[in-house]
């Protein structure tokens, strides 16, 4: 096995062990979307009309994507914690390939996210959500979701290495809960005022949520939306490619150079 893959695997294992030993963050990030599904689904569901869909079927893919965007927070918190505790410095004095540490972290996070979607989707089924499209479409939807999560974690890793501080990362991480609010994760963007609608539709979360709804067959692509939402699958892939192209090199560089 190449150095890179070997180190990455070791770091991947460490990340999983770390989450198992300290499941607090994991429990929070898993129970949050379920409670939001029940709360939004039954409170807003009675007041909101979504063109061509049941609100709860519209909400399930939206919450999946909103939760995936929480990868920014998780990634940031974990890498800031590593810097803060000196773990990053120890790893940097080892003969470990530079990319292995963040790669292992991001990969482990995606695996955990994938496992976490199962209980969430079971609750989704219980409240009436179904795969209304093809099985292939559903597989594509999950793959796209995980790709988006992967991209989000890299943003988080970079920000965590930059802030270097657990508390600051925690506070900044809290702000990432706001990101899905200005997107089509919870509400259709058609009803928003023009300016706000444009902003919301250029939010990557909107493109991915729309793509998931399209691939699961839960809701139609909205009319007259901005390009990434009007072409949701291409738009989502584009967003992921851009985010990864920007944040992977930034994170790896930041990791390698440390505190200067």
């Amino acid at each position, binding site marked *: 096995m190449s150095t890179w893959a070997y*180190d990455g695997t*070791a770091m991947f*294992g*460490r990340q999983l*062990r*770390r989450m198992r*030993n*300290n499941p607090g963050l994991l429990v929070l990030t898993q129970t949050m979307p379920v409670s939001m599904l029940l709360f939004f689904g039954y409170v807003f569901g009675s007041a909101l009309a979504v063109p061509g869909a049941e609100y709860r079927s519209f909400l399930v893919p939206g919450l999946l994507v909103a939760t995936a965007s929480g990868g920014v927070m998780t990634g940031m918190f974990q890498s800031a914690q*590593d810097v803060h*505790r*000196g*773990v990053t*410095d*120890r*790893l*940097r*004095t*080892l*003969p*470990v390939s530079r990319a292995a540490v963040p790669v292992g972290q991001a990969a482990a996070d995606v695996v955990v996210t994938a496992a976490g979607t199962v209980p969430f989707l079971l609750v989704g089924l219980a409240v009436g959500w179904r795969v209304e499209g093809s099985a292939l479409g559903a597989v594509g939807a999950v793959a796209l979701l995980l790709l988006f999560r992967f991209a989000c974690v890299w943003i988080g890793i970079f920000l965590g290495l930059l802030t270097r501080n657990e508390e600051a990362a925690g506070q900044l991480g809290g702000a990432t809960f706001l990101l899905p609010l200005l997107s089509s994760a919870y509400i259709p963007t058609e009803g928003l005022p023009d300016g706000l609608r444009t902003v919301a539709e250029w939010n990557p979360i909107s493109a991915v949520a729309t793509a998931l709804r399209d691939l699961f067959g839960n809701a139609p692509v909205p009319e007259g939306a901005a390009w990434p939402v009007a072409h949701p699958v291409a738009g989502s892939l584009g967003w992921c490619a851009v985010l990864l192209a920007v944040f992977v090199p930034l994170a790896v560089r930041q990791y390698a*150079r*440390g*505190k*200067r």
Partner: protein
Amino acid sequence: MTTTYTVLSEGLEKRFGDVRALRGLDLAVAEGTVCGVLGPNGAGKTTAVRLLTTLLRPDAGSARIAGHDLVREAAAVRRRIGVTGQDTSIDGDLTGRQNLRLFARLHRVRGAAARAAELLDRFGLTEAADRPASGYSGGMRRRLDLAASLVRRPEVLFLDEPTTGLDPASRTPVWDAVRELTGEGTTVLLTTQYLEEADRLADDIALVDRGRVAHTGTPAGLKSLVGTHVEVVVADADALVTAAGVLDRLTGAEPSFDRERNAVGAVTGDPTLTLPRLVRTLDAAGVPLLDASLRPPTLDDVFLRLVGGPGTPSDHPAEDEERAA
């Protein structure tokens, strides 16, 4: 025979904004020896260790570690060093055993599990091995940290203030580990604020002041250069002159008086002056002795003598008091 220097730095400089942490650091550590880098808080010890272990890049100067250029061959340097930084660097979410296994795997150690168990045993951590490291006491963390830097026997071991903040009982295994490693040929560079620690462990001492090496020598040389403080306290002021006369004869140095405490002191470089001899001589001269002490020189004494000042003013007065105590 020519000496091989395992750590050799020339003119290392590092600046943080306006602070010149290192201003041309020259160090030479011979293979298989222990070099004690001695200096007060803020002298630049940690910065030096972070540079020499590839964590920071020097602004100027160069260094070779185990024959490899610090900057151009950083990967080769990392394969040959072990590092225990000033602050602990272990993953509190993992157990002690998991930490060591991870570092052993990353070091490509065959039989990582066995190596981890061996180190846990050696540092008295077997009992706590399977508990999360976040629950360890300060001394346990420090020992785990040290164990982590030994998973693969390093050619050069860097220890940044390895025993600062440890109780005396926890210092012993750290010192033992250092001696054992040098016995096996590892070169050690350790920083410390304690002259006593450098004296116990180091073959050579580099005294660092304001980012530069101010003096080098052996611990014995350094100590005899400064000398031992002798102080006696007498029952009444009239006896002070007699006591001073005795001290003058024994040490050959100018005595200094502290009249408020009825005390008189002097400095000696004479290793044969022991406490019994001091007390006997004073008693024979009829001095009503209340207290007598021989105090080995501290870092402060060394600085006063060699640098002519108290060294770098510290950002941490509390630690200074600790050091003076």
